[in-house]
Structures are given as structure tokens and as C-alpha cells.
């Protein structure tokens, strides 16, 4: 486990404020904004914008990799299957109508591609039960993926996590609070603005500045990690 030590003091104060407030008074947006973003990217891809499809690749390749790692053991095979899955998805992008979420559609393609790959090698997939994709997604077996990490990649991941943790601890309080409420508590900008008693634009700016500060510290590590591959 790569433990992330969290600065709790500020979170605790804001969490208490959140508990005392009536959640029914908060307006939760009815539409799924993530699905809206994916749909826009799909529509751009359908109109010939390959770079828009690239954003979808960037967004979901790790999730797909993790999903397929539960079916296939070999790292290079997983990468090949992930590549083939995205190629198939791109070729069939005009058939995607938005009835389901894009990632659900993508994951089905990924699972089928993995099954076909294993069948062609006369190997049975690891998950032989008729497990739904959502179940595979939520299957809390982190040890599966962890066991495939090399010592080198494991150490790199720990170092990255430590750098993030340390940077967050040294952030100004308002930036630390904003990004922590966003990432750890999953609150929307509107909710954070209510808690921190500031405009939504200020929340947006604080979260962005926090991320930029952390990104600056991570830059040397990311470059080292890229060279390693």
C-alpha cells in the first residue's frame, strides 16, 4: 500500500462544517458532467478529430489497463490488448450512440478483446465466471495489480506519492483545503465554495494553483519515470 499521509486538521474542521450543514439544501446537478464531457469528445471524434479521441485514450487507458490486468498476467500482453481495444473502439466510434457511458462501452470492447486473445493462445481467462464489467471494476483486489509491479516501479510510485504528500503539507492553508476537499471528499466546486465561504471562481483558482505547485515538484520525477520506460 502506498500510504498517503493526510493533513487532517483543516479537513476535520471543514468536514464538521459539512456535517452540520443540511445537505438537502445543496443543489446537486442532475446531469452527469463526466458523461457529458465524454459525449462531446466522442462527437468530435466522429467528425474526424483524432486528437479528441486521444483525450479519451489519455483519460481511460490506465483504468482499462487495470481492468484487463485481472484477466491477463503478462504486462506486455496487457499493453497489446489495451492498444487493440482502443483501435477497435476508434474503428467503431461511429456506432457509439451514447446509450451507455463511453467507458462502459470501451470496457466491454476491452474484455472481449482480452478473451479473444486468451482463447487464441488457448489460455482460459483468469475471471472465468460471468462477471459483469462493473463488478470487475469494483473488485477490490488491489494485490493483483500490486504483484505485477517491479521493485523499481514500486519504489518510483512510493517516491511520487511521498512528494505529493510533502508538497500538500507545505501548501498555504486555503490551497490545501480546497484541493483536499475536492480530491479526498469528492465535493463539487459549489459545495467547496459554500464551506470555504468564497466564490466558485476562487475555489477553481485555488485548486488549480495547488495542482500547479504539486506538478512543479513532480516534474523531475515524471521525467525520470518516462526515461525508465
Amino acid at each position, binding site marked *: 500500500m*502506498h500510504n498517503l499521509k493526510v493533513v487532517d486538521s483543516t479537513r476535520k474542521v471543514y468536514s464538521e462544517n459539512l456535517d452540520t450543514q443540511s445537505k438537502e439544501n445543496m443543489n446537486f446537478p442532475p446531469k452527469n458532467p463526466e458523461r457529458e464531457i465524454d459525449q462531446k469528445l466522442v462527437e468530435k471524434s466522429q467528425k474526424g478529430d483524432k486528437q479528441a479521441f486521444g483525450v479519451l485514450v489519455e483519460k481511460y487507458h490506465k483504468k482499462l489497463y487495470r481492468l484487463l490486468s485481472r484477466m491477463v498476467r503478462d504486462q506486455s500482453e496487457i499493453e497489446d490488448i489495451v492498444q487493440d481495444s482502443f483501435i477497435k473502439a476508434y474503428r467503431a466510434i461511429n456506432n457509439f450512440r451514447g446509450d451507455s457511458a463511453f467507458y462502459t462501452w470501451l470496457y466491454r470492447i476491452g474484455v472481449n478483446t482480452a478473451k479473444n486473445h486468451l482463447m487464441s493462445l488457448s489460455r482460459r481467462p483468469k475471471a472465468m465466471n460471468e462477471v459483469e464489467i462493473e463488478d470487475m471494476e469494483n473488485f477490490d483486489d488491489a494485490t493483483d495489480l500490486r504483484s505485477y509491479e517491479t521493485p523499481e516501479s514500486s519504489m518510483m510510485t512510493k517516491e511520487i506519492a511521498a512528494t505529493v504528500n510533502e508538497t500538500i503539507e507545505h501548501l498555504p492553508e486555503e490551497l490545501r483545503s480546497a484541493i483536499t476537499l475536492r480530491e479526498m471528499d469528492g465535493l463539487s466546486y459549489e459545495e467547496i465554495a459554500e464551506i470555504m465561504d468564497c466564490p466558485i471562481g476562487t475555489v477553481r483558482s485555488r485548486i488549480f494553483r495547488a495542482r500547479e505547485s504539486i506538478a512543479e515538484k513532480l516534474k523531475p520525477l515524471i521525467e525520470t519515470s518516462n526515461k525508465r520506460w
Partner: protein
Amino acid sequence: MSENISSIIDNELKGKDLDHGLNELAKNSSALSSYRTYQMISDIMKNDYYDVNSELTDKIMSRIQDEPTQFNNGFIYNNQSTATIDYKKYLLVFVLGLIAAFGISWAVNNFSNSESTSSSDFLASDSISQEIIEDHFSTTTRNPNHFLEAGYQPNI
């Protein structure tokens, strides 16, 4: 620009700002790099980060670039100068057009043939002299073909 990218990560960008942000993300490699880093930070803070080959997305996009560009139920080959478009939608119109063209051509040919031996076509010509015309009318009551039998050669 990067602030928009940060908002996209949180699904907090809407409307025209979202369109601009997505365009920036798709076209600008620096924006995509920021997106990648912010996503990493988010995964780490949620204790959901794992190391994946950083070149994987580049490999995928390299293969995507070699694929024909998808374009509204058709596709365009990248390395060809001509576009290959699916004609399914217009096939019926094309076939009907062929049938219509064939029909018109047949009708015109048949109409032309039925009048080609008519003496009235020749008589309508401006190059016929008045003498010939008077001679024709004086004899056609007895022999409608006198004009032709007399050996007058039409000036065709």
C-alpha cells in the same frame, strides 16, 4: 488555459468554456501534458495510482494516426488523394438516375427515327426552291410520293 484543464479534470467546466477547453486539450500537447499530471495527482491523493508505461498512449495514438479518419459514417484514407465515401445513401438515387437517362435516350431516339423519312421535314427546309414546292403541291393530290420519285435529292 491550464485552469480550464484543471476544471475539466473535476468535470466542472460547462458550455462554451468546456468546448474551448476540450479543443485546447485536443490540439495542444502542453495542455495534454498538464492534464496527465493533474490526473496523476488526483489518483495519488485518492490512493488509486499505479505505474503504467508512459509511452502507452503515444503507441496507441501512433496507431490511430495510421487508421483511416472516421467521418460521419464514412472514412477517408490518410495516404490517398481521393476520398472513398460510402454511397449507400445515394445508391437508389443513382440507379433511378441511370434508368431515367436510359429512358430519355430511348424516347429521343425513337421519336427521331419516326420522323426521319417524313417528306414534311424536307419540305420544312428553307433551302427548297419555290418551283419545287409548287410542283410538289400540284402532283401530290395524285401521287404523294411524286416529289421523291422525281428524283429530287434532299439537301441534307
